[in-house]
């Protein structure tokens, strides 16, 4: 049977908030029953280094036990009824965003690997004809050293763009997103 053609992607444009704000979720941790509450904040920058005030990040992550709230996760780990793992986070007029969540647990990678805790991110904005995928890892995780996805990024400097920096003594992380330039964030083809 011949396959159908996937519908092309188009930009969210400048008026994305009109249709999408109702589902904004910047506190993923609200209602979670396990795990370390953390905050991740940063700024989205364009190719001129200017902040992007009309971007939106969507987030997808496992719960503190390393279990996704999805039927295809058949791991024998507990679900957290109060934790969905989805976030939708807009940038403000200065290109800044911030969200609160639970530090995700580890989930399996391909083969017999384990992935370090991470959040999958989809990036949307005016000027992007299709969204881009990236990931957020955490600077205080020893498991980063053996993460099979971080290992796909050859340059250590580029790998660093995926790692959120933990503030001293606080459960707060800083993660900036650069669309282009010397600090360009790693985006994935997946």
């Amino acid at each position, binding site marked *: 049977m011949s396959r*159908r053609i996937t519908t092309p992607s188009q930009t969210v444009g400048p*008026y994305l908030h*009109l249709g999408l704000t109702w589902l904004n979720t910047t506190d993923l941790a609200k209602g979670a029953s396990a795990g370390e509450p953390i905050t991740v904040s940063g700024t989205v920058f364009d190719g001129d280094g200017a902040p992007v005030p009309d971007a939106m990040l969507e987030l*997808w992550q496992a719960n503190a036990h390393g279990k996704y709230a999805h039927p295809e996760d058949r791991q024998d780990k507990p679900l957290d009824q109060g934790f969905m793992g989805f976030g939708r986070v807009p940038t403000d007029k200065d290109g800044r965003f911030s969200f609160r969540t639970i530090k995700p647990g580890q989930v399996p990678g391909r083969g017999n690997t384990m*992935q370090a805790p991470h959040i999958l991110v989809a990036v949307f904005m005016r000027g*992007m*004809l299709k969204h881009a995928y990236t990931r957020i890892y955490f600077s205080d995780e020893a498991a980063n050293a053996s993460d099979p996805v971080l290992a796909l990024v050859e340059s250590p400097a580029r790998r660093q763009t995926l790692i959120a920096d933990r503030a001293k003594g606080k459960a707060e992380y800083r993660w900036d997103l650069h669309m282009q330039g010397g600090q*360009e964030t790693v985006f994935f*083809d997946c």
Partner: protein
Amino acid sequence: MDPIGYRPSTPGSQPNYLHPPYKSTVKRAPGKPLVLLPQTLTEVTGPIFGHDKVAPTDNDLTKQHAGEPLGERIIVGGQVMDEDGRPVPNTLIEIWQCNAAGRYNHPVDQHDAPIDANFTGTGRAMTDAEGRYQFTSIKPGAYPWRNHPNAWRPAHIHLSLFGPSFMTRLVTQMYFPGDPLLPFDPIFNCVADPVARDRMISQFDLERTVPEWALGFRFDIVLRGRNATPMVG
């Protein structure tokens, strides 16, 4: 066992990030090659929204205010499926659009056209068990933008879909048949393959048209398919 991944979209069906005729892509498209990531459990899962998120009336954009919005009433609907033609049931669709005069109910839009106090321009629906959906709305107008001299966007409705996985996420725009602005629009024309491009144009649908009430348009949506059918259960 490794999860069964989602296939790349049909070759030629998706835009490149960089499309210079659409000027905003120049500073916002990733500049470096993407890193190939074989999908893991993280990628093949994704958020699942229940029908409780959406009220049954959320799909009628003409009934959100005291009065009726101005313009040509339309009914837009179709089926959401994957590349293999399998319906995508119980998935969230979000839409937004400008009013009949070509003005968005949004502070960023300063186009000199009237706001319609009876039209917000945003709606939501869940697909049914066969992947079908429907919205009632007003045909959006064309509007100018500053991409190039005398630039006008063809009439369009923005649609956002999730599907069963973070890999099936899609934001697109639906256009109307016979719109004379389509050949001049760099956003519509960002897709190289004309057959794929035409998948963004809805079709007039007499079956969906309600006598003495509203014109019907059919817009089927195809999300990424899987390399093979996963085992269920």
